């Protein structure tokens, strides 16, 4: 009745390019820095970090071009950084400082930049992305709309309304499901009946399950699938079994220690460090320092301004 998770021990990581490793580590240290700042009371509001899931947008990065639309969700810092490599703009947004991508109005989970959009209501973006894909199919064939959703978000009816229309109208829509086995505090098994794969296929939509957390492997599995979406203009669901290493937002992790340990055991970070210690430690140190610089620099900026514009 409930979704099963493949919990085979992860296979060893492959060696990443320096650029990929840098991007992974940039995201990691960015998220750690945020939690750190929250812990010290330097941040206001809330945030959802993607610790453990960084490799998903990094694997996708070279498979997308600027003409593709990306729809992100609450857990979107990695999605943003993989697209724009702009930790200053994002941190400024989270902190409400000058240079913020959205002037501090949107904050962590409401970001619009070029063809990248995130918003905070789960599932709402799926039909919106279908609408964008409808336009792309006609006006810019070969381009696609990609939506990141979590496993929990498959509870929302909007997802099925979107899948149905995307399948009927053969839209170039990709749903990237970051199935981290949990929604806030609720394990997937008690909030999702059947399976995501079955749900996609029930609408005539192809589904690919990706269990690796190795950036190279994931990318290699995704590449032909995205190419097919572009060629055929048909929707696709890609489900990645991934692991949320951190809390849902800040400090609200009510999982048992074993469960958190399970997630940690799948974390690419420690495993990559063990497999490629030299490359890792050099880049890790570099990104840690880079992020520390970003934090220092952005923290020194004045408050963002939001003026003279149409406020509603």
């Amino acid at each position, binding site marked *: 009745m409930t979704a099963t998770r493949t919990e085979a021990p992860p296979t060893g990581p492959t060696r990443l390019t320096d650029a990929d490793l840098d991007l992974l580590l940039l995201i990691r240290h960015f998220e750690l820095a945020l939690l750190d700042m929250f812990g010290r009371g330097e941040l206001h509001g809330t945030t959802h970090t993607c610790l453990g899931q960084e490799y998903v947008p990094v694997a996708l990065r070279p498979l997308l071009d600027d003409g593709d639309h990306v729809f992100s969700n609450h857990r979107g810092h990695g999605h943003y950084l993989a697209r724009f490599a702009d930790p200053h703009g994002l941190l400024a947004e989270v902190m409400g400082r000058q240079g913020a991508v959205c002037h501090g*109005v*949107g904050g962590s989970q409401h970001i619009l930049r070029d063809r990248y*959009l995130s918003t905070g209501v789960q599932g*709402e973006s799926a*039909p*919106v992305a*279908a*609408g964008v894909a409808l*336009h792309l199919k006609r006006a810019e064939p070969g381009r696609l709309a990609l939506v990141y959703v979590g496993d929990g978000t498959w509870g929302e009816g909007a997802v099925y*309304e979107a899948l149905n229309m995307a399948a009927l109208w053969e839209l170039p829509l990709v749903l990237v499901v970051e199935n981290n086995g949990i929604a806030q505090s609720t394990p997937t098994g008690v909030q999702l009946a059947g399976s995501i794969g079955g749900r996609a296929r029930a609408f005539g939509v192809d589904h690919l399950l990706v269990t690796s957390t190795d950036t190279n492997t994931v990318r290699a599995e995704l590449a032909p699938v995205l190419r097919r979406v572009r060629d055929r203009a048909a929707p696709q669901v890609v489900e990645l079994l991934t692991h949320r290493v951190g809390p849902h937002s800040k400090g609200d992790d009510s999982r048992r220690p074993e469960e958190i340990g399970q997630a940690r055991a799948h974390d690419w970070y420690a495993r990559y460090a063990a497999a490629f210690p030299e490359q890792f430690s050099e880049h890790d140190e570099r990104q840690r320092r880079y992020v520390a610089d970003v934090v220092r620099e952005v923290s020194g900026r004045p408050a963002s301004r939001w003026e003279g514009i149409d406020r509603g």
Partner: protein
Amino acid sequence: MAERVVENLNQALHALMADDPGLHLLGEDLVDPYGGAFKATRGLSGRWPDRVLSTPLSEGGIVGVAGGLALAGQSAIVEIMFSDFVALAFDQILNFASKSTAMYGRPVPMRLVVRCPTGGNRGYGPTHSQSPQKHFVGIPGLTLHEVSPFHDNHAVLARMLASGRPGLLFEDKVLYTNRMYADGVVDELFRYDYLGPDAGTARIWVDDPEQCDCVLVVPGGLAGRAVRVARELLLRDDIVCQVLVPSRLWPLDVDALLPSLARAGRVVVAEESTAGGTWGAELAQAVHGRLWGTLRAPVRLVHSADSVIPTAAHLERTVLVQDTDIHRAVKEVVSGD
């Protein structure tokens, strides 16, 4: 005789589709030969099969798709078969389409109109007869309009889309088969002209537009009924009542109304919504604030009862606002001082 309101609307959609290659129409059962539940979209899918789409039953999803088209720089008009079902798209309207115009820190144009066949008096029952305008008043970024027999739908829709703000267009279902008014003439007694920018508010008057005993403000769906009542008031009660019909319900253009209201000093607002949190209450609040000391009586609201809307005609009548209710309210306000 002038065309019917639904024909005017249908022609407006034809003209808009012809003019804007980026405009899409979405909704349930829109395509020919069916042409929509109320036939407003007749003949459109034949001309533009790619841009006129019959959708699955997915009100929330359709408005979401339209929001996506708007986000991608296109324009979209959605038909919700009965406005009661726009409840299913409340999230997309409140939290996506309207929010997106501003929540990213800069203006994002969203050219999106949701058409809502509205109201009762057709015996369709409690879930197919409501007037949900009031539930959408005061959503930042959203505009509300209502079809009226005085306002050309092409001009209204073109302006709504050009504004770059998402909007709802309420369309009284009984009004569809009424005639548009033309050439400034209502009948042998009443004339009309327009007030405010974009001729946004129709003003219907007898003899002298600057003189009346009372002003009756109504949304488009009640325009015909208001004119009928004004005529009766004149002939039976010798009361001169001016009728104002703003095309845009929200944001309110109170400035356009104020001179008339101030001159009369007596104001009745009538609408079909059931009681509570009505559009009229919002209008009254604006008027009370601006014309305190000038008004001779508080703004009087007329609306349907605080009740579900029954199916049977004889019961529906006991709930929905009637001409006699409006008539009585005007008489009371006029004789009250």
